[in-house]
Each structure stands twice: as C-alpha cells, then as structure tokens.
C-alpha cells in the first residue's frame, strides 16, 4: 500500500474505534471512485449530535491529532490538524441541499485493509461542487464529469454483456 492508502486505512481504523459514522465526501471521495485528481486533505461528513462530538474527540485521540478547530470563525466546519494530513469535518449537509441520510443511501462502499469506507457517490460529489461554486471546485468539475461519464459507460457495457 502507498502512504496515501495507509493514511486512509488509519483514518478508517480511528473512525471504527470511535464508532463514529462518517461519509467520505469531496475530492477524496472522487479519487476513491477513479477520478484522476489529487487532494491535500480528507473531508468527512457526520451528523451533528452531542454524542458525535464526543466520538470526534475519541477519533482525533486515536489519530494522535490536535483538537478539532474551526475552519473560520464564520463557518461551522472543523478541521483536525496534527495527523499526517488535515481532516475536515462537515456537519449534516453539503452544498446543493445534500443531506446526510440521502448521501448515505446513495453512497458506495469501498473496502480498504478490511475496513469499509462509506463514500459519497461521484454524482453527489459533482452536485456539491457545482453548488459550492468555488473556483477550485469549478476547475475540477470537467474531469469529475468525464470520470462519471466513463464510469456509467463501463457499467452500461457490463450490464449489456449479462
């Protein structure tokens, strides 16, 4: 395994130990579904409950990271720094009106080192980036859309063969 995969495996282990239910979203979700892009952090979406705030604390302890900090005083997301890479924690929903339950229902499951990552499907990643509208998201959209087209073509072809 590469160090990138090892970091993801370590993150999944921390989530499992903390019993924290999280959906991998953002560019890491896209990468895990074959998008040829790179990213600097991992985005996780969780439900905002007092119990999950406690589990978050446990997770960051397992990772050996610092306490979650606000990304900015005006926004709700948190960032966990001090692990090998930053982990952004988002709560309840993504841009584009994508709520936790719907994202989880459409998510794909990807196994790494015997642990399962719940990963937002590529169509949802694209929808959230279209809605977020930041320039870095706009720049990534063409290759994400092309990856989705190829993914769907491969699925259609496999279905046609059956």
């Amino acid at each position, binding site marked *: 395994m590469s160090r990138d995969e090892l970091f993801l495996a370590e993150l999944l282990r921390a989530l499992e130990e903390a019993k924290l239910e999280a959906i991998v979203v953002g560019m890491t979700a896209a990468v895990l579904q074959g998008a040829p892009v790179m990213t600097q952090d991992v985005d996780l979406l969780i439900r905002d409950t007092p119990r999950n705030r406690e589990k978050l604390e446990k997770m960051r302890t397992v990772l050996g990271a610092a306490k979650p900090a606000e990304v900015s005083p005006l926004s709700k997301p948190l960032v966990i720094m001090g692990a090998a890479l930053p982990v952004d924690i988002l709560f309840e929903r993504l841009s584009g009106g994508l709520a936790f339950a719907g994202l989880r229902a459409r998510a794909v499951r990807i196994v790494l080192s015997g642990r399962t990552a719940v990963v937002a499907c590529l169509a949802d990643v694209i929808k959230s980036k279209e809605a977020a509208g930041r320039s870095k998201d706009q720049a990534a959209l063409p290759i994400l859309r092309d*990856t989705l087209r190829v993914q769907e073509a491969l699925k259609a072809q496999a279905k046609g063969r059956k």
Partner: protein
Amino acid sequence: MPRRSQRSRSSESAQLFAQRVLDTRARVAPLVPEVSDEDLLLILQSLLRPIGSGRRFFLWPTESGLHVP
C-alpha cells in the same frame, strides 16, 4: 526471490495492466465521444487500479511549504 525475477514479474504485471487499460479504452471510447483520448486514458488508469494497490492521490506538505505526491 532474486531481484531480477522480481523486476521481471513487476514489469510483466505493468504490461498486463497497460494492455487492460488499452483494451478497455478501445471498448469504451465510442460510448464517450465527448471525453478526450488523453483524459480517457488518465481516467481508466485510475478507475482500473483498485484502492489498496499502491495508488497515490494526496499532496503531502513538505518543510519548504510545497506539496508533493
């Protein structure tokens, strides 16, 4: 295992993977005419390589402030 044999096996598996990418491209390209040949190759190389097989996708910070794969 002797080093030369390891190298030859690794080169063989790289060759097999490259062939699989090219075969898949030949099959799928007509279905996605809007995707350029270059992007299709990049996408298939990522799509066909399962997670856990040594994929690299993070940019890591270095002391100089740069981010590198």
